[in-house]
């Protein structure tokens, strides 16, 4: 236990008393008429603004709420935790400002709630600045087109559906298909490749055990130092679940606006929409389709529009978003999924069937897309990505014929064989993101035909052998490749030589 400094305590007390605001005159005050289900209905405060913070006096101290329903006779204010202390008749005052959260480098490495309060048992966070939870998105002229890659380290994504800094790429799939695994690997890759990208992981209504496991994994991989985790569990008030992504975005915007790069992960927006539906119904707003309020599209559009690549005049920073949506029975045409698909710049669709076939990450090459595409891809991976995508799409067309092995012509058989090898190649273990050179070498080995005689089940082994050998014997080539530029003929020769030798050792 720390020694209590009596002199410091006296100073702190005096400072606190001196700092107490003495009212210059009359202040707006209201009273709670009724309270329940996380909503306090307040009489008075006619000058309260939308989303303004209100302070409710209770026996246990001040409870914060924010005004969401401004009606003629009363205000509906959503309580931010501590609802059990609020009673009818309690005094309510306006704070005169909208919600803000602490932002800054001091938040890195911490696990906080949507109001910036620490949840990791560490000391209270003192930041120099605060960011607005709700903030308009950057205008058209303040943006630049996405042109820098954000490497996830997952070969299937970086090669076929590349993500750029400032892009919004949706990760969508049923439960237990590896959506969170993809974002964890992306975060790990930022630390592994020393990209300097700050991660902000927003857990919306996630199990605390899952969040704890995630934080432990991030610490093990050395990622936590450049990550902020904003955590809400299913037992938190719906208001906190509603605020979590906006609060996290405010924290990410701090780095974006300073010319840095940040990655926002919203896990997941389906739960966010459900929490907002709960709040809206309790605020007696009219329900629409599937009982969601009419502005559920705006809920997500205003969130995701804040992720952008800034122009050079504004510092050229970026905020990339990886929102996650959970579908039911693979239905991507449901209400919330279609809303978010239309907002984002592409989606990575994970299929349960692929997952149980052992294809992990279970990315559907047919339904996934990145609308930014090659503009955000390194030249090295771009040079092999085209062949990869073509090979896989040809394989998909012929997949149903694979069972008629002996009745097919040679060309068809070759396409099927190539497709099977590509599919096997794209399998990747969790927590093992791949660098640019590893991806290039692996894909080139198959698309160039070097691995055509390697049995499908040995493709991963052969891939590992090539990578190990190159790393051991040609570090100079690797360093050049890892810069991302298109490989030279000399580099290709070295790689082809090694690949051929390795492939020979695996042939049947």
């Amino acid at each position, binding site marked *: 236990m720390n020694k209590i400094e009596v002199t410091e305590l006296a100073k702190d007390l005096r400072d606190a008393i001196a700092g*107490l605001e003495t*009212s210059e005159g*009359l202040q*707006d*005050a209201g009273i709670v008429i009724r309270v329940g289900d996380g909503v306090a209905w307040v009489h008075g*405060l*006619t000058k309260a603004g939308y989303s303004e913070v209100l302070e409710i006096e209770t026996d246990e101290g001040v409870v914060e709420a924010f005004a969401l329903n401004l009606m003629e006779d009363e205000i509906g204010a959503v309580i931010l935790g501590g609802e059990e202390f609020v009673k009818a008749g309690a005094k309510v005052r306006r704070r005169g400002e909208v919600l803000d959260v602490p932002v800054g480098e001091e938040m890195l490495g911490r696990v906080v709630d949507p109001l910036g309060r620490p949840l990791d048992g560490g000391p209270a966070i003192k930041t120099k600045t605060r960011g607005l939870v709700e903030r308009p998105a950057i205008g058209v002229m303040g943006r630049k087109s996405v042109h820098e890659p954000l490497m996830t380290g997952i070969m299937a994504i970086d090669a076929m559906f590349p993500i750029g800094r400032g892009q919004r790429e949706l990760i969508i799939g049923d439960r237990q298909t590896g959506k969170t695994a993809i974002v964890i690997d992306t975060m790990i890759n930022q630390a592994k490749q020393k990209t300097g990208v700050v991660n902000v992981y927003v857990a919306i209504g996630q199990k605390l055990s899952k969040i704890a496991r995630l934080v432990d994994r991030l610490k093990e991989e050395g990622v936590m130092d450049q990550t902020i985790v904003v955590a809400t569990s299913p037992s938190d008030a719906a208001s906190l679940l509603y605020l979590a992504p906006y609060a996290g975005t405010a924290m990410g915007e701090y780095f974006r606006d300073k010319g840095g790069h940040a990655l926002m992960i919203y896990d997941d927006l389906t739960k966010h929409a459900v929490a907002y539906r709960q709040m809206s119904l309790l605020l007696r707003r009219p329900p629409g389709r599937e009982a969601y309020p009419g502005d559920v599209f705006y809920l997500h559009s205003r969130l995701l529009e804040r992720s952008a690549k800034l122009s050079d005049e504004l510092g050229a920073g970026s905020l990339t978003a990886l929102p996650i949506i959970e579908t039911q029975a693979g239905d991507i045409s449901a209400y919330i999924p279609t809303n978010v698909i239309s907002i984002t710049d592409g989606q990575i669709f994970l299929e349960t069937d692929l997952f149980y076939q052992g294809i992990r990450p279970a990315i559907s090459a047919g339904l996934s897309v990145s609308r930014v595409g090659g503009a955000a891809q390194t030249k090295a991976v771009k040079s092999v990505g085209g062949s990869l995508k073509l090979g896989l799409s040809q394989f998909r067309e012929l997949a149903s014929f694979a069972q008629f092995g002996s009745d097919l012509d040679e060309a068809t058989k070759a396409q099927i064989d190539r497709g099977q090898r590509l599919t096997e190649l794209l399998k990747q273990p969790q927590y093992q993101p791949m660098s640019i050179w590893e991806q290039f070498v692996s894909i080139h080995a198959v698309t160039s035909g070097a691995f055509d005689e390697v049995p499908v089940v040995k493709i991963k082994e052969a891939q590992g052998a090539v990578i190990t050998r190159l790393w051991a014997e040609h570090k100079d080539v690797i360093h050049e490749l890892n810069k991302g530029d298109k490989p030279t003929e000399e580099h290709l020769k070295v790689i082809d030589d090694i690949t051929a030798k390795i492939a020979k050792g695996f042939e049947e």
Partner: protein
Amino acid sequence: MTMRLSRRKIARYVAGRLAIGDKLIIEELAALIIEERRERDIDLLVRDIEDQLAQSGITIATVETAKPLSETVRQSVRKLLGGDVRLREEVRPELIGGIRIETPTQELDGTISQKIYALKSRKV
């Protein structure tokens, strides 16, 4: 089906009639409350009416102090609120000291008990 009038609209109308000295409006209001079964809204209606009266220059304020008000303080309160001020004075020793002035929608709380509450609510 007649639309249920909002409290604010009712208060605005009643305050207008009271301001010109028409006390019959009180009985009419009572009848409306009973007919529309809005007995639970009485306190809030009164607050709204007092708020509307305040906007027309007639301020009804509650002054709470730990000891009885002196005339000097009474005059200061009238000066602060301005206009035609009607005071309701209450003595509450638990306030310890200072003064609390409440109008229907505003408040000035300079009591010692409020300062203690504010201290307790803040992290030192």
